């Protein structure tokens, strides 16, 4: 039983002067300043936040989901400590989804300014005379505006942890962006296609804590359905040998990736159904057609072929 819960990380951006100017920071870093440094909030006259940094672009087409809510939360926290601070959020779409919409409204009521930008015309950040200058297009007044904030906060993308090796080890699939892929988006949301391996949290996709907890509970429950039993029933997809036809040629013994088939005391191939993984390699290789994979027997596969083109008669 394996639950893949590798978590995720905040992307360290390589744009908007991040790492080059100490006034530029990520939301997590900003939050730390707010909490750990009592004077920090008071010193902030103007704060600009840029959303969708590293998300929803060509490299990472996905929405990182937590950044809008985090930006609103941090803006409100600053406002609570320093009501005079001016907060401007440059966004593409505000996605304070679920029950977080009221915070968005509250922020607007408290004077946080939300300004939309287009991905083709992203805000420009540069240093001018030792100050941080942010230039952007303000759509309501239809003018380019430059602001000199005390702090620029980047709502940076959520990225998966380095998990390629683990994926190869468990032989479970990942999306192109590196998040693990469940067996089925709707029908098997915390399972992998491989039995006994489950996924939850940021390993699977960006999500907030409530969602992570819910998914973790789901994964634990799925694992529990197996662990709670004294015995397990294995799937019926196993290879069976027709001893009459078996020439004891050893092809299956050599072909099986799990070394399951053996030649028994009757001189025939024998496949232990509990050990069989059901891949069907032996059935395909058997030169005597003595092995059939249950649920994928030749007649069944061929019946599907026949049925596809309207043939009713099934050749055995």
């Amino acid at each position, binding site marked *: 039983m394996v639950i893949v819960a590798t978590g995720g990380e905040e992307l360290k951006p390589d744009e908007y002067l991040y790492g080059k100017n100490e006034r530029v920071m990520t939301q997590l870093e900003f939050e730390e300043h707010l909490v750990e440094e009592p004077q920090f909030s008071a010193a902030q006259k103007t704060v600009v936040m840029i959303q969708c940094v590293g998300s929803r672009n060509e490299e990472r087409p996905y929405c990182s989901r937590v950044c809008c809510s985090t930006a609103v939360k941090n803006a409100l926290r600053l406002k609570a400590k320093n009501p005079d601070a001016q907060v401007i959020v440059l966004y593409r779409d505000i996605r304070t989804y679920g029950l977080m919409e009221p915070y968005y409204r509250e922020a607007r009521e408290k004077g946080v300014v939300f300004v939309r930008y287009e991905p083709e015309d992203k805000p420009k950040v540069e240093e001018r005379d030792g100050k941080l200058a942010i230039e952007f297009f303000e759509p309501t007044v239809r003018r380019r505006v430059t602001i000199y904030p005390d702090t620029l906060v980047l709502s940076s993308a959520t990225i998966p942890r380095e998990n390629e090796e683990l994926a*190869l080890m468990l*032989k479970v*699939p*990942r*999306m*192109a962006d590196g998040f693990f*892929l469940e*067996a*089925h*988006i*709707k029908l098997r949301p915390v399972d992998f*296609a*491989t039995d006994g391996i489950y996924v939850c949290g940021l390993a699977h996709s960006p999500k907030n804590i409530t969602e992570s907890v819910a998914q973790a509970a789901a994964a634990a429950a799925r694992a529990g359905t197996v662990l709670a039993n004294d015995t397990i029933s294995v799937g019926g*997809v196993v290879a069976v040998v027709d001893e009459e036809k078996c020439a004891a040629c050893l092809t299956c013994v050599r*072909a099986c*990736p*799990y070394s399951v088939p053996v030649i028994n005391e009757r001189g025939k191939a024998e496949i232990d159904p509990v050990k069989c*993984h*059901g*891949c*069907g*390699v032996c*059935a*395909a*290789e058997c030169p005597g057609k003595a092995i059939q*994979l249950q649920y*994928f027997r*030749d007649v069944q*596969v*061929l019946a*599907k*072929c*026949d049925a*596809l*083109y309207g*043939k009713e008669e099934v*050749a055995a």
Partner: protein
Amino acid sequence: MSEDDFEPKIVAFCCHYCAYTAADLAGSMRLQYPPNIRIIRLPCTGKVDVLHLLRAFEDGADGVYVAGCMEGDCHFINGNFRAKKRVQYAKKLLDEIGFGGERLEMFNMSAAMGTRFAEVAKEMVERIKKLGPSPIRGGKTKKDGDAL
């Protein structure tokens, strides 16, 4: 029959763990791909039998392909490699009888490659459209000297 109004019938033998899931994903992603593809699910492409490939053609398929996991990623260690070799063998056999081995192909994709699944489907439909109907459905055989 012109290339335009010929709608090929294509059978895709898909591995449960990757190509079949990729097909599912292609659906969830609302990706469009030609409706000519008929999928037969197998636990692993290692279950693909040369006989099944030939029988699909006998049943009237204009093209057949096998879609397995990325090389090195087979859920059952190396089933996709075996499938690749069998496809090569069957292609040679189809060439030998003048049917044309290019009507059969092997592809590799991961479960996350919904887009690739749709692409492969398109690619195969285009290829078979160019080749025309199966020789047993009135198409030309390679022995007629009309090789593409």
